[in-house]
C-alpha cells in the first residue's frame, strides 16, 4: 500500500476556514438532506461493487480462455482425459451458466472451488486472512500512532532539529522499496550477518510443530512477526507523519490557538487539546482509506518473509490462473476498499456536517 503522499488530496477545504465546532448551527443541512446524502453514498458504493463483480468474471476469462490447458499440461493425453479435466472444473458449461453460478456464489459468499488446490476458495481465504490482518493491521496501527506523534512534534518544532531529522528519515524510509528494507532488516537481524546475534527467525509464520493456539504458539508467531511488522511500520510512517505535520502547520496560525494561549494554557496543552484535534481530520480520511488495503496486504513483504497471507495466495493463483481463487480474492480486496471508502465518506460527513449537502 504505497500510495504517493499527496498532501493536497487530504486537505479538506473546511480546515482552512473556521474549525467545525465554530460553524453556525443554522447552516446545518436538514435531516432529509442528510438522508438523501447517505442514500447517495451507499447507492454509489453498491453500484461500484456490482460493476467490479461483473468485470471480475470477464477479466480473468479474457486473460486465459483455456485454464484447462495449463492445468493438464503433461498429464492428460487422451481426448477423454482432457474432457475429464474440463468437466472437473466446470468449464464445459456455457458461459452464461458459469456467470450465473458465479453470481450465486458471490451472493452466498461461497466463491466455488479453487482449481489449484481442489478445495473451497472460502476456506483457503479464511486460512490466509488472519496472517495478513495481523501483519498489516498491526503495522498500520503502529505507524498511525507513531506517525501522528512524529508529525505533531515536528510541526510544533518546525525548522528545529527534530523536524529536520524526522522528516528526512521518514521520507527516506518511505522511498525505499518495502521488500528491500525488509531484506536489509532480515539480513541484519536474522542471518547472523557480521557477527550480529540471530535475534529473529528466517521467515515463516511459526516454528514447525508448535500448536498455533497454545501460549507458546502465539508467542512464537509474535516473534516471527516482529521483523515484517517493523518493516511495514517504518515504510508507512511517512504517510501519517507528513500529513499530520502539514495539517498541524495549517492550524498553528489560527486565532483560536491564540485564544487558548491567552487563557493561560501551557504550550503542550494548547497543542494537545486544540490544535491536534482539528488537524486530525485529514489523518482520519487517510486512515479509513488505508484500512481498506489491509486485507490486500503487502505482497512483497509476505514474499520476503515467506508469510502465507492473502497477497501470496493471489500471486500464486495468477500463475495457473486459478480463476475461482482470483475472483474470490479480487472481490474481497475491492469490496474492502469500497467499504472503507464508504465509511470514510460517512465518517467525514459525521465529523464535518457541511459535507452532507
Amino acid at each position, binding site marked *: 500500500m504505497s500510495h504517493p503522499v499527496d498532501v493536497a488530496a487530504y486537505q479538506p477545504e473546511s480546515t482552512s476556514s473556521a474549525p467545525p465546532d465554530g460553524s453556525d448551527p443554522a447552516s446545518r443541512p436538514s435531516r432529509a438532506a442528510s438522508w438523501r446524502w447517505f442514500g447517495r453514498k451507499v447507492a454509489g458504493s453498491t453500484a461500484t461493487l456490482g460493476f467490479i463483480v461483473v468485470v471480475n468474471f470477464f477479466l480473468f476469462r479474457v486473460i486465459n480462455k483455456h485454464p484447462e*490447458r495449463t492445468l493438464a499440461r503433461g498429464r492428460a493425453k487422451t481426448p477423454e*482425459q482432457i474432457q*475429464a479435466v474440463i468437466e*472437473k472444473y466446470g468449464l464445459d458449461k456455457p458461459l452464461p451458466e458459469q456467470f450465473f453460478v458465479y453470481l450465486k456464489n458471490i451472493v452466498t459468499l461461497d466463491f466455488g472451488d479453487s482449481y489449484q488446490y481442489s478445495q473451497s476458495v472460502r476456506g483457503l481465504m479464511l486460512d490466509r486472512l488472519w496472517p495478513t490482518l495481523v501483519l498489516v493491521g498491526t503495522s498500520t496501527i503502529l505507524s498511525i500512532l507513531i506517525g501522528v506523534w512524529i508529525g505533531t512534534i515536528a510541526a510544533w518544532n518546525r525548522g528545529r532539529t527534530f523536524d529536520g531529522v524526522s522528516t528526512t528519515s521518514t521520507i527516506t524510509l518511505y522511498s525505499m522499496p518495502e521488500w528491500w528494507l525488509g531484506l536489509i532488516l532480515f539480513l541484519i537481524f536474522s542471518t547472523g550477518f557480521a557477527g550480529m546475534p540471530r535475534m529473529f527467525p*528466517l*521467515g515463516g509464520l511459526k516454528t514447525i510443530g508448535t500448536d498455533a493456539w497454545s501460549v507458546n504458539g502465539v508467542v512464537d508467531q509474535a516473534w516471527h512477526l516482529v521483523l515484517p511488522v517493523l518493516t511495514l511500520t517504518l515504510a508507512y510512517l511517512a504517510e501519517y507523519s507528513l500529513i499530520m505535520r502539514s495539517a498541524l502547520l495549517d492550524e498553528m496560525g489560527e486565532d483560536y490557538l491564540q485564544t487558548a494561549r491567552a487563557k493561560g494554557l501551557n504550550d503542550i496543552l494548547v497543542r494537545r487539546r486544540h490544535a491536534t484535534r482539528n488537524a486530525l481530520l485529514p489523518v482520519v480520511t487517510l486512515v479509513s482509506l488505508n484500512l481498506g488495503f489491509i486485507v490486500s496486504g503487502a505482497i512483497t513483504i509476505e514474499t520476503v518473509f515467506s508469510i502465507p497471507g492473502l497477497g501470496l495466495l493471489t500471486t500464486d493463483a495468477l500463475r495457473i490462473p486459478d480463476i475461482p481463487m482470483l475472483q474470490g480474492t479480487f472481490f474481497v480486496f475491492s469490496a474492502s476498499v469500497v467499504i472503507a471508502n464508504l465509511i470514510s465518506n460517512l465518517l467525514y460527513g459525521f465529523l464535518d456536517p457541511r459535507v452532507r449537502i
Partner: protein
Amino acid sequence: MTRTGLRSSRVTAAAAATTLLMGAALWGATTTAQAKSAQAADDATFTIGMTNEVDSFNPFNGIEAESYEAWALMYDYMISYSAKDMSPKPSLATSWDTSADGLTWTFHIREGVKWSDGEPLTAKDIAYTYNRILDGGPESASWGSYLISVTDITAPDDKTVVLTLKKPNATLPLLPMPIVPEHIWKDVSEKDVKTYSNEPKSADQPVVGSGPFKLVEGKAGGSTYRFVRNDGYWGGEPKVGEIDMRVFKSEDTLVQSLKAGDIDFAEDINALQVKALQGEPGITAQEGSSPGYEELAFNTGSVDLKTGKPLGDPNPAVLNKDFRFALTFAIDRQKIVDKAYQGAGLAAQNIIPPAYKTYYWTPPSKDTYAYDPEKSKRLLDEAGFKVGADGFRTMPDGSPIGKLRLYARSDSETSVSTMAFFQEWLKDVNIDSKVSSFESSKLTNIILDGEFDVFEWGWYVEPDPDSMLSYFTCAQRGNWSDSWYCNPTYDRLYKEQNAATDDAKRADIVKQMQQILYDDAPYLNTVYDTIGEAYRSDRWEGFVPQPDPGGILLFQYGHANYINMAPAGTSDGTPGQPQSSDEAGSGQVMIILVAIVVAGAAVVGGWLMMRRRTAGDRE
C-alpha cells in the same frame, strides 16, 4: 487533568505490555529451540526447504512436484524405480509376468504389508485404486494415461493383481500411481473426490497410508508440512523420526536458512546459489542431472484439426524442414549451458536424455550437433534460402522471410537469455528475428492457436519414453504436441514401439524415431536440465543420487533416500552429533532482554518527564 493522565497511563501500559511480550517471545523462542535440540539427540528431524507449495495431498488432484514428493512419503507404489537408471524394480509387487501375447499382466503382491491404521494392505486395495482411475472422472484425468488399452483390473486373491489389455502396451509396468486404502476411500464418492483434501484433522489422526512416513500436519497451499515415521515400515525403518517441509517464497531466504542451519536440505536452487554454497563449510551443494531437457520448438504446421485448414500464422520459413535442420548447426549449445545456465546443465542432443541408457540415441558422429555456422549457411543456401539484397535471407521464391518471432517464457530467466542468444545466432546466418516474452499460461494458448514461429520450453522425461514420443504424433496435435509435428512414418513407428513386447526391438525403434526427429527438426534441443540441491553434510549422509552417478538426491522417482538418509557419523557406528540449529546462547538472550528493558524504561521515563512538564497545568 484526569483525562491526560488517563491517556498517558494507557501509553505506559502498552509499553509495558510490549516489553513483556517481547521478553516472553524470546523466552518462548529459546525454549522451543532447546526442545528441538533435545529431540534431535534421540530422534532426528530432517527439514526440507522448497520454493513451491503442495497443491493437494489428494493423489487424484495435485499436479505439482512437491505434491508427488508428499505422496511418495505417504504411500507405496506397486512398482518402484532403481536409483541407477530408473528401471522398474519390485515394491508392493515382488514380481510380475506377462502372457506370451502381451495382453495379460500378472503381479504378485507382497504379503504382510499394513496400512498405518493397522489394516492389511492387499491386492484388493491395488485393484481398487487402479479401477477408480479406469472408471473415468478426475482420477482418470490425473492418471489415466498409464492405463491406456487396459480393459480390466482384478484381484483374484489377496496376493495377485491381473491387468487385462486389449492390445499390448510397452509402457507397462510403468505405474506411478500411489496406492490408496479402499477402506478409507470407498467413502469418498466420485463426485466428492475433486474437493477431497486428504489432510489430517489433527496430529493424532494422520492420513492413512502405507508409506514410510505419515502426514500429521499440513494443508494444501500451506507453508509447512510435517510427516512422522511410520514405525515398522516394511521397506526398512527410516533413520529419521520426522520429515518437515517448509515453503520459502524467496530463494535468498531459503539459502540463508540452510546456511544458518534452520533447514537441512534446499531443493531446486539456482546455479549461482549452488556455486556460492559450494564453498560453505558443512554444506554439500550440487547440480543433479534431472531427466529433462529444454528446447527451441518450431511451428511445423499448425492446422485446424476439424477442417484440416492451416491455423494461426506461422512464418513459411519454419514450415520447411530443410530450413529448420540447417539451424541445428547455427546454435552453440555449450555456450547456452555456460552463459544462460551458468554451467548448470549439459549440452543436449535429442529427446531422450542419456540417463535412460536403453533408449538414448547416441549421435552417429561428433559433428551431429556441432556448432558450425558456415555449414548452416551452406545448408540454407542449398535449400534455396538465399541472401537477398538487404543482407537477409529470402524464401526460395524470392519473397522476404521477414522477422521470425521468438517467444520466451517470462517466468524463466534461462528461457529469455537462451532466446537472446538464438536471436544473435540467427543474425549470424542472415536471418532477422525478434524476441518476446509471455507468461507460461499465455504461451500455452499461443502455441495451441498456432500463432508463433519459435518458442522456448522444456519437458521432463519419464522412465518410460512412450509419453515423450507421443508428443510428436499427429494425434497429439492441438493437445500436447506443441510443435504441430506430423509424420506418418514416425506415427507408424510410435505404434510399433508401443506394441513391442521385446525390449531390445523396442529400443531399436525408439532410436529410429529420434533419428527422424533429428532430420525433421521440429525441436532443436538445447540443454539437459539439472536441479540445484544443497544439504547439511555435517549433519546428514547416506543419499544415493538418481540416476547414479550424477543425479538428484531428493524429489526422485520413489522414496528411497528418505530411508537411506542418516545422521552424519551414524552409519559407521559412532553416534552423530547433530548441531543444534539455534545457538542463541543464554548470554545473548540476556543482552537482548536487557536492551528491551532499557528501551521500556526509556519510554516510561519519557512519559514521566512529560508529566512533569505539564504538571503546572494540572488541577
